[in-house]
């Protein structure tokens, strides 16, 4: 009995409090520091400089990294044997990229290593070879892999942007370019308006609207062959084509007697089915990643709002509940979030929303932002903005909200469409 008492009293002296919890809900604003060491090469390779420069340009494109100047580097390793973490720790570098280039008459081989200075370990060992003339593609692939090993996000340096260029009245063209605006190609030019470019899921075709026949018609152009087809409807005004992610159909809008409604065109059966039949305006369809639902803009409840229609039973429900104007919505690749244009009192912002939540997150601050397009890794949005009445393309990363602008073109640039991942 005495012993029991002693033990009981002894145990009572122990505290049973909860541990101190400290919450950290935001991170540093500082950029991660990377160093791209001059590659070792068998000949004094001019390509070394080009490769290193291009990789540097790509990795610093979206304002996520700060790259170390050559003049500050303490050593120039090219393989793991002559790589010393301390040389980079001293400079507070987070990641180092180094390696070797082997050059022959027509081809290049690049062996590269990405090292994490904080964890003191190698993140990636890569080996890529190709023809010298494909140097840009080689660089894009290296940049993608380096980016992936550092951020965990799939790289988008090899993806493309499609957009409408309007340098002067009666002069329109559909163009595609790299993400940084380089390597612009014109796909089609016309004296009549062109609109709404949309990529096929395999990246081989582009659908768009052209007024060359005198009314709005949808064309599907094969990027390789240049062959153009249309969706067969008898002279009806058609617009806003969007390719389903499963490649089976194209949803679009037919304006019958001035009343736009949603339709779906099955690419295999060539049959068109009607999705909505409301006296209001139904337009701007956008597919969910599983191809089962479409978001669209409708004014059926008084002002432009975003609705969702399930393809299986044609059931419609309203998605946006706040604000006087919501339109031009797109699903994120995760299928859980959407991006759209949110308007209030004449000011338009790009906003995102988790479909399970009510509140919206404003992404951009400039006033006349339109046509948001999402990168295939769901991390960046490119949209068209206006400066002095001229349209230009701007982009923003969704985590840091770091902004960038694509090179200004002569004339207005509109309606950007981000390609899917390309091979």
């Amino acid at each position, binding site marked *: 009995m*005495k012993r029991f008492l*002693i033990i009981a*009293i*002894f145990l*009572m*002296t122990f*505290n049973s*409090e*909860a*541990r*101190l*919890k*400290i*919450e*950290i*809900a*935001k*991170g*540093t604003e*500082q950029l*991660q520091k990377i160093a791209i060491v001059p590659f070792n090469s068998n000949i004094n390779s001019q390509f070394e400089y080009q490769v290193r420069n291009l990789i540097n340009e790509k990795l610093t494109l979206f304002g996520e990294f700060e790259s170390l100047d050559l003049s500050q580097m303490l050593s120039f390793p090219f393989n793991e044997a002559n790589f010393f973490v301390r040389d980079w720790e001293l400079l507070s570098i*987070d990641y180092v990229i180094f390696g070797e280039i082997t050059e022959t008459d027509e081809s290049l081989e690049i062996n590269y290593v990405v090292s994490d200075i*904080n*964890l003191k370990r190698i993140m990636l060992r890569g080996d890529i070879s190709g023809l010298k003339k494909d140097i840009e593609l080689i660089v894009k692939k290296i940049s993608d892999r380096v980016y992936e090993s550092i*951020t*965990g*996000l799939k790289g988008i340096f090899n993806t493309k942007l499609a957009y409408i260029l309007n340098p002067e009245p009666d002069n329109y063209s559909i163009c595609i370019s790299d993400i940084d605006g380089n390597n612009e190609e014109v796909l089609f030019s016309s004296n009549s308006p062109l609109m709404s470019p949309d990529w096929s899921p395999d990246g081989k075709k582009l659908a768009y609207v052209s007024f060359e026949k005198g009314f709005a018609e949808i064309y599907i152009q094969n990027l390789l062959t240049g062959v153009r087809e249309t969706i067969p409807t008898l002279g009806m005004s058609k617009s806003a084509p969007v390719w389903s992610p499963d490649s089976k159909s194209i949803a679009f809008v037919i304006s019958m007697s001035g009343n736009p409604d949603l339709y779906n065109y099955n690419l295999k059966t060539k049959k068109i089915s009607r999705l909505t039949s409301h006296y209001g305006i139904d337009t701007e369809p956008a597919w969910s990643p599983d191809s089962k639902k479409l978001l669209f803009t409708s004014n059926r409840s008084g002002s432009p709002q975003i609705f969702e229609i399930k393809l299986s039973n044609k059931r419609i429900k309203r998605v946006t509940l706040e604000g006087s104007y919501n339109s031009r919505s797109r699903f*994120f690749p*995760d299928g*859980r*979030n959407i991006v759209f244009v949110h308007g209030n009192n004449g000011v338009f912002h790009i906003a*995102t*929303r*988790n479909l399970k*939540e009510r509140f919206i*997150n404003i992404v951009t601050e400039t006033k006349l932002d339109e046509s948001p397009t999402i990168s295939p890794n*769901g*991390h960046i949005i490119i949209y068209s903005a206006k400066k002095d009445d001229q349209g230009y393309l701007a982009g923003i*990363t*969704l*985590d840091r909200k770091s902004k960038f602008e694509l090179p200004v073109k002569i004339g207005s640039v509109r309606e950007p469409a981000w390609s899917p991942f390309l091979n």
Partner: protein
Amino acid sequence: MINLQIGFFLSFLGHILILLMITADFSIFYPKKNTYETISVGFILEKQEELFLKKSSENLFSLKELEVSELKSEEIIEPNNNIVSSDLSIAAKKSLDDLKKQKYKTAISKIQKKFIDIWIKPFVLNEDIQVSILITLAPSGEILSRNLIESSGNKKFDESAMKAVSKINFLQDVSDLSRYDFEKYFREIDLVFKSR
């Protein structure tokens, strides 16, 4: 006879010992005014002015009452310096409480800021995820161990938090606290990294 006496005496000693153990833990007896308490050799000499004239049980748990939720904010909350009461012991007690609270909250804010400045937060869109990392500290502030106790489900997110914690070796803000406060609250800290 003798056994009985020894037995009684030892039992009496044992009970006194237990009583002393309990009282030492809860500090029922207060030392006199102007006592000095050293923490660790060669580091800090801390003067603790105890202004209490009589014991009061409510003081024992003054820090325990602090809700952890109060300390989520990053701002340092200024102590309330407006002491209206004319009773000296109550006023003195309040200012000592405030002093303790402020030091406690200041230490937490500073620790929070240290991790915010070093954490490279990975991209998570409109989602609530969190990872918990348990650290143990020495009274000097040195981080003795780091352990992931609750994953967020996102490997990159967990890794980024572990990286941030690995980059820091010292939390010198705890060296400012009393030994008592340190042992009770800061010996083990649960760092919760949240996506939003």
